[in-house]
């Protein structure tokens, strides 16, 4: 396999957008093409991460539409759908294509437009990724987070206030990110006074519904200098699935797909969790940042929330998590998220994050499908 690098990135502002999905992805791709000086290059492939443009926007075949808009023909274009991990699934496909030698230049785009439907309809569209039994019962993704939060708090004697601190931190980080959806600062009290959504979790424990897109350009590392003076190597990548039905998990407090995928990524990169300097996790709800931080190997089981309280995961801590604001505050346009996480890590490694910049040479992104149904973990390193 060839060493594969990210040589360019692009991202739209996340939030409520009036443009269509293809417009948003075009904007992100245009940025990535300019960033990598590949505007006039031939690409062999375009991989598009998108979960539900059929339901949200009433269109099919977004990859073909985007390929045409960008003038990428005859590059092969295809959509990758893996629910909320569609973005990282597209990145994995791009990595496979370049690392295997099948393609030399691959463009990866992730995008979703969600504000086209009322919130309750969006909740329902997303809940349909659950097994039919769970969906029919009325389970939603937020309800799973509520169930997990209660069990976690009971098992580890964790406080509700400590969990709220995750949201406070991620809003603070997002306030320093011009592309983030929610840029307002909040307090623990704000979280605890917000309306109950899935008891014990409240409105401010959850990500908003957002529109947006992100894109990256992949090339062989040995050719990366042609496109950028700051290539970022994908040194490790791992992916895994867990049971579709959450009720069939070995341990309700462990996201096994995250554990297995990250183990594989660490092995490929020859790295250990303690060597990661910055990470983006899939914090659709505050409790997920905590449990993922444990299953990624950053902290022992039951210690994730203590690390949060101690400031370890803050911008100035030892291991800053979700410097972008995370799904919680940067926003979570489903298919865009996995690519946007990679863009944030790349920008951190390239020292392009302005007021939210941290010291980092090795970064990690963890994109999760559904409630841990699937996970893709990427490890990235400065290549120059």
């Amino acid at each position, binding site marked *: 396999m060839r060493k594969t690098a990210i040589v360019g990135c692009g991202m739209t502002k996340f939030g409520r957008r009036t443009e269509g999905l293809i417009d948003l992805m075009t904007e992100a791709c245009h940025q990535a093409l300019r960033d990598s000086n590949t505007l006039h290059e031939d690409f062999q492939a375009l991989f598009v991460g998108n979960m539900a443009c059929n339901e949200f926007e009433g269109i099919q075949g977004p990859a073909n539409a985007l390929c045409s808009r960008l003038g990428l023909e005859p590059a092969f274009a295809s959509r990758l759908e893996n629910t909320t991990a569609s973005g990282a699934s597209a990145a994995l496909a791009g990595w496979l294509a370049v690392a295997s030698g099948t393609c030399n230049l691959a463009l990866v785009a992730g995008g979703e437009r969600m504000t086209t439907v009322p919130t309750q309809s969006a909740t329902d569209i997303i809940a349909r990724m659950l097994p039919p039994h769970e969906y029919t019962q009325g389970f939603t993704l937020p309800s799973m987070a509520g*169930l997990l939060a209660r*069990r976690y708090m009971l098992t580890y004697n964790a406080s509700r206030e400590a969990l709220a601190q995750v949201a406070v931190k991620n809003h603070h980080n997002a306030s320093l990110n011009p592309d983030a959806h929610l840029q307002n600062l909040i307090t623990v009290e704000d979280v605890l006074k917000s309306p109950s959504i*899935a008891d014990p979790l409240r409105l401010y424990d959850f990500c908003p519904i957002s529109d947006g897109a992100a894109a990256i350009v992949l090339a062989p590392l040995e050719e990366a200098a042609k496109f950028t003076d700051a290539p970022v190597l994908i040194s490790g990548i791992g992916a895994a699935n867990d049971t579709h039905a959450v009720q069939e998990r070995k341990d*309700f407090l462990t996201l096994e797909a995250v554990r297995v995928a990250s183990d594989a990524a660490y092995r490929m990169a020859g790295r250990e969790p303690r060597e990661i300097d910055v990470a983006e996790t899939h914090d659709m709800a505050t409790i997920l940042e905590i449990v993922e931080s444990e299953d990624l190997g950053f902290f022992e089981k039951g210690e994730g929330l203590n690390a949060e309280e101690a400031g370890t995961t803050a911008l100035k801590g030892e291991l800053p998590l979700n410097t972008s604001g995370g799904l919680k505050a940067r926003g979570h346009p489903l298919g865009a998220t996995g690519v946007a996480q990679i863009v944030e890590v790349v920008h951190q490694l390239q020292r392009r994050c302005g007021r939210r910049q941290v010291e980092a040479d090795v970064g990690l992104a963890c994109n999760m499908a559904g409630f841990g149904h699937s996970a893709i973990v990427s490890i990235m390193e400065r290549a120059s």
Partner: protein
Amino acid sequence: MTARLSARRCESCGFAAMLEHLRCPRCKREVFKEFSISTGELVTYTVLTAVAEGCEKPLYLGFAEFEGKLSISAQLAFTDPAVGMKVKLGWGVLRKKKGETVEGLKLEPL
């Protein structure tokens, strides 16, 4: 109303599930045996106020562990849940889907 239902257990490793699998997700064998679901204990619950279309709010949802290491997620047929309480399987109205009322399993206090 008490529901009398069965689940399947992998004869090789003991993994138990209500849903059908061609192969056991843990040991990859394919021989399962049916067994009757008895009583369980509520492991966690949530009260959902942001419900999906067709569901009444608030919606009480829970996870219970039944004898034989079988876990079941379902609506609660009661509104005073506590982690650790004993439950059994019942039956009732779950939601509306395309205008039709859908019934299914519910967790009831023992």
